């Protein structure tokens, strides 16, 4: 399942909720979009949580949202960047999606 998170981890519990349940099924992946891309930046207080989950599932971030927020030079190593086309591919490749609204 593709888990999509779009809220800032500093304002909202959705990333934590996602990380709590993710990785317990084969083929789980996380896509960070909009303000959730802040979780993908080096040195933020969520970095260790993200790194921990990267051992179990693939973590992606939406490049246009990363770049809009000036985070492009500080992305945690190992997080894969996708553009809008890549976003569509991820949705198509996974059996289903969960948007953590």
């Amino acid at each position, binding site marked *: 399942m593709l888990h999509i998170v779009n809220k800032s981890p*500093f*304002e909202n519990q959705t990333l934590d909720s996602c990380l709590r349940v993710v990785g317990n099924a084969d083929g789980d992946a996380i896509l960070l979009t*909009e303000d959730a891309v802040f979780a993908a930046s080096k040195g933020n207080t969520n970095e260790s949580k993200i790194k921990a989950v990267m051992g179990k599932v693939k973590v992606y971030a939406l490049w246009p949202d990363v770049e*809009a*927020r*000036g985070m492009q030079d*500080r992305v945690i190593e190992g997080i894969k960047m996708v553009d809008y086309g890549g976003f569509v591919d991820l949705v198509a490749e996974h059996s289903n999606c969960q948007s953590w609204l």
Partner: protein
Amino acid sequence: MGEEMTEATGGIDFEDEEASGVVKKFMFVNRKAPYGTIYALEALEVVLISAAFDQDVSLAFLDDGVYQIVKGQHTKAIDVKNFSPTYRALEGYDIEKLYVEKESLDQRGLTEADLLVDVQVMSSAEMAKMMAEQDIVISF
């Protein structure tokens, strides 16, 4: 003359304040990241409007608000206006008091060098004092 003015302003008499030139301390508190919501842009609009009224204006950046003034924002791909250069133009409107809470920067792995404007970085305790000094605090 006095009666005419009252009528022209919808019954509200501004005459006293205008005569005495009251300048109040306004602080705009920014706590939201840019682009994800409209708050940051709306705050900036109100700040620019306030500049026309010759008031003592300051901006505070806390929590995700510090992301508003991070360098290197490129919004072409999300097709949204990049309003971050506007913060650098505030100086031209005599808005030079930009306060940033250090704790918010630390939580986000950011330093003053990552910001696109000159700011005064301060602790939460100092920020609390700064807020307490204001006549009016407007929160976004």
